[in-house]
């Protein structure tokens, strides 16, 4: 591991540690001061920990892991995210590439892209539930829609930003359209496609959690959150949120690693080297 990376890791650990200590103090004081009995919708609920101390959090984590709820939820939600991501990128990236390369296609698709770009995928939830049912399909399609729009724009912009000089150089060396696409356009647009995939990945996690709120029949992170909110059990909510955060972080780290490998050839500023 190089120096700057280690330094950044240290800083991250330090800031997390400071936050953890602050939370510990706040929850110890809070559990004595905050009410245990709260009014929710139509009745009182007793024995609520609004700011659970570490002891309850650890207890809850152990329970969720030992009962198999958390591991299974992680598997199910991660599976949905990855399927939606793969499907969305498989549609979005080729569409974005061809849109940037064909003016006629661009005219046809552009209004639709602009329209969907600002439509939150979640607004489509009721429609998808009606069309594709309440099962897996509508959840994965919902994620795929969000991912497709973002990756389409990334691929489109990536191709548009390929410097003209590379295309002309390839043409004057006698390259065919296919070769230019494979050896010039694709590698030159790849950094931007990767960047859009990273954004899409975050969006996929946001979408999956909400999509899982509807008619959940399997343990999943979104379902766990919905359930914990209904009881209500704050420790469960906290563990679920932390789990999702860690998963997003892990996914992002993998994506960054792939990006670094795919762009070895790029000049980098020393801070990112």
């Amino acid at each position, binding site marked *: 591991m190089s120096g700057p990376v280690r330094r950044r890791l240290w800083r991250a650990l330090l800031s997390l540690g400071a936050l953890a200590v602050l939370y510990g103090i706040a929850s110890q004081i809070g559990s004595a001061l905050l009410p245990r009995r709260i009014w929710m919708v139509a009745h009182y609920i007793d024995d609520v920990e609004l700011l659970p101390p570490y002891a309850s959090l650890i207890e809850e984590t152990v329970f969720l892991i030992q009962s198999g709820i958390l591991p299974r939820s992680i598997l199910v939600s991660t599976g949905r995210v990855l399927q939606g991501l793969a499907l969305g990128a498989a549609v979005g990236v080729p569409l974005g590439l061809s849109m940037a390369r064909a003016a006629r296609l661009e005219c046809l698709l552009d209004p639709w892209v602009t329209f969907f770009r600002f439509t939150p995928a979640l607004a489509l939830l009721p429609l998808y539930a009606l069309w594709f049912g309440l099962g897996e399909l509508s959840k994965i399609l919902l994620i795929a829609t969000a991912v497709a729009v973002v990756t389409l724009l990334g691929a489109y912009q990536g191709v548009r930003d390929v410097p003209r000089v*590379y295309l*002309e*150089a*390839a*043409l004057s*060396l006698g390259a065919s359209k296919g070769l230019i696409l494979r*050896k010039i356009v694709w590698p030159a647009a790849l950094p931007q496609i990767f960047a859009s995939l990273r954004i899409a990945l975050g969006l996929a996690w946001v979408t999956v959690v909400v999509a899982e709120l509807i008619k959940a029949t399997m343990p999943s992170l979104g379902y766990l959150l919905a359930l914990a909110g209904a009881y209500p059990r704050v420790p469960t909510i906290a563990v679920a949120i932390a789990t999702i955060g860690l998963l997003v972080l892990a996914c992002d780290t993998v994506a960054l690693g792939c990006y670094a490998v795919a762009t070895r*050839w790029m*000049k980098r500023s020393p801070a990112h080297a």
Partner: protein
Amino acid sequence: MPDPRRRRLEIRDVVHVYEGKMATRALDGVSLDVHENEFLAIVGPVGSGKTTLVRIVAGFLTPSRGVVRWDGAPVMGPSPERGYVFQEEAIFPWMTVRDNLAFGLLAQGVEASEREKIVAGLVTLIGLEGYERAYPKELSGGMSKMVEVARVLATDPAILLLDEPFGLLDAQTRSKMQDQLSRLWEEKRKTVILVTHDIEEAIYLADRVVVFAPRPGRVQAEVRVDLPRPRSLETRFSPAFLELKRSIWKEIGRA
């Protein structure tokens, strides 16, 4: 035996107007002939349409009027027959030196073993042994320019179009590159058009220098360079060289 008087490139009454809010007339009736294995240099100030002219010859641009013929046939678009070296950095940064050099051969369907052989020869020619697997970011500006020249030479084009190839380099590197190009040309003997605003560079390398007048671009004068080859550092300080330099400056001053 190539015939030095055989005309290969014929530029006739070429006019080019860049359309837009302010239509710019970049070229105004340019006619030029370039002969077999001739090294022609075009000099002129910024905005005299030099680059526009070579871009038309390359086939990147279609002239508004007039015609460019290569071996008698009108130029319809880019072709590996007319190799082009750009002002900007044009070697592909995502390919290694080897892959850059092999790209034109790959595009023309030359098989792998043959590609290897030609690329190895080119690497030796430009003195970059050991850098075959390096990415362009690891090369200096002069080195990557030489890779670009070699990449164009790989497919053995009939004419080399050099558009201010050394414009972005510092003076010392540039003169080194000029020596290397001059040596390369003497070895390979090709038809070349070099566009430059560096008058010494033009005289040092060319057989004939065409002076362009600015806005709209047109041919103002032609100067024949009969300096003996191979040329060297001494050439740059010979009385004949200085005399040529003086006469070209005079032409530019009259514009």
